[in-house]
């Protein structure tokens, strides 16, 4: 009887736990607290926080319970992360939600979306400088795109062992946009620049909105075919929305499908942060480089907008450059709010959304390019 009880106890989580599991469980609880009490990105942080709890309950190796053990349920669900299935489904839903009207009215703003991706490539150099392997460096660099699904997609392809830290870093910085971006915006712009008003936007025809996803798909994916799984689904979702004859499918994509993918992606990415894999020096490096990547991305968007102003008659408010990162709609909201702080009649939101949409396309192209170079 005693032997049986001792054997049972030795297989419980209490006996197998070490201090690192406790740290991770605290991080998971903090995520859940921030999501529920502070309403901080709840759709992401609740699944991720719960996933962290799930992944850090110690289990006896060989029972087929851990995410990293073949045949476990979590391992089967992890398949959707490693193959890029969930990020692609998220992009399908995003496409069905995105309204490109503001971008079609101001196609020149696509350059701001491109400029914000400079952060990705600078961070690539930084990660190589600090001794990361090339594939790891590319996975860390993509955090600068401020796009969770894209970061997970690329990391799953190039450095699957880093999915946990890269995903947590990417989503953390997306949630921390209101903390990270405003100081950079203030530092790099003058009061007069922040007061620049943008022209009213013209109407866009229905035909224009229908044809855009087709043209964009062909142009982007012929140039960077590796971005096909993300951009293909993104533009397909958008065509479902804009064609108006597939409203039922578009509705499913922007509700059921994206919710399904977000739940599984969040929980499984959270569960992949097992203490022994997550609490390492490498993860600390990823968090630091991720923050640098995100900051450079914001700064490069703003600086590029200022450079464009040197050549353009109609000046651009440089705050819009910060919205070139693909954190939709967080960074657009920050640019808009900063503009409103300076002048409460200056509404930049629709212009910022245009930069934001192009940022999504830009970061997916950048991911495709990195995959192509390092695969």
């Amino acid at each position, binding site marked *: 009887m005693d032997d049986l009880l001792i054997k049972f106890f030795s297989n419980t989580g209490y006996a197998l736990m070490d201090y690192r599991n406790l740290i991770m469980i605290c991080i998971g609880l903090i995520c859940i607290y921030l999501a529920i009490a502070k309403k901080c990105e709840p759709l992401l942080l609740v699944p991720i926080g719960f996933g962290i709890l799930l992944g850090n309950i110690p289990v006896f190796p060989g029972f087929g319970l851990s995410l990293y053990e073949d045949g476990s349920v979590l391992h089967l669900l992890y398949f959707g992360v490693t193959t890029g299935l969930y990020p692609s489904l998220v992009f399908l839903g995003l496409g069905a939600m995105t309204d490109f009207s503001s971008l079609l009215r101001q*196609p020149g703003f*696509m350059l701001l979306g491109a400029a914000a*991706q400079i952060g990705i490539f600078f961070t690539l*150099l930084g990660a*190589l400088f600090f001794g990361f392997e090339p594939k790891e460096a590319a996975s860390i660099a993509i955090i600068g795109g401020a796009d969770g699904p894209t970061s997970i997609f690329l990391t799953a392809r190039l450095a699957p062992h880093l999915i946990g830290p890269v995903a947590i870093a990417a989503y953390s910085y997306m949630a921390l946009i209101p903390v990270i971006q405003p100081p950079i915006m203030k530092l790099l712009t003058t009061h007069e620049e922040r007061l620049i008003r943008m022209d009213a936007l013209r109407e866009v025809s229905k035909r*224009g909105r229908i044809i*855009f996803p087709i043209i964009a798909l062909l*142009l982007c994916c012929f140039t960077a075919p590796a971005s096909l799984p993300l951009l293909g689904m993104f533009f397909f979702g958008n065509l479902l929305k804009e064609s108006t004859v597939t409203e039922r499918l578009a509705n499913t994509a922007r509700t059921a499908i994206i919710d399904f993918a977000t739940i599984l992606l969040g929980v499984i990415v959270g569960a992949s942060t097992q203490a022994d894999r997550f609490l390492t020096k490498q993860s600390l490096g990823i968090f630091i480089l991720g923050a640098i990547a995100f900051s450079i991305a914001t700064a490069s968007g703003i600086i590029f907008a200022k450079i464009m102003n040197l050549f353009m008659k109609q000046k651009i408010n440089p705050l819009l450059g910060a919205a070139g990162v693909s954190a939709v709609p967080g960074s657009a909201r920050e640019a808009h709010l900063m503009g409103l702080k300076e002048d409460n009649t200056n509404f930049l939101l629709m212009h910022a959304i245009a930069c934001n949409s192009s940022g999504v396309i830009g970061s997916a192209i950048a991911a495709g390019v*990195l995959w192509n170079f390092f695969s």
Partner: protein
Amino acid sequence: MYGLKAISNNNGWVIAAAGILIVFTCLAVLSLAVSQIKVIFILFDRGNKFYKKIKSRRSKKKIPESGNAAFYELLNSELEEQFQLFDLLEILDKNNFPHPYLTVNQLRYGKTIIPFGDGFFIFNMNEV
């Protein structure tokens, strides 16, 4: 390996420069294409208008007024000597005559076509 040597050994400089260039080129070309969409639509609309104009002209030319020589010539070329009203209707319909049933009625009551028996009709040569 650390530092600038690690960047150079892994082609970091080239990859970063090429990556930035590709992303910029892709979005710049897309931006250019989007700004030219309206030009494509204008050309498309012009082509559409032109096509409709030609189509309407052609269809106008095709329909001879009933009672004209061209009208009888058309019927004569497409109908047998003895024909059923259904055949006549079909030809009128195929050639876009505006009111095929009224036209057939007019031909019957004006005795331009007369019954031949067994549901067949022939042209009344005295009237034509």
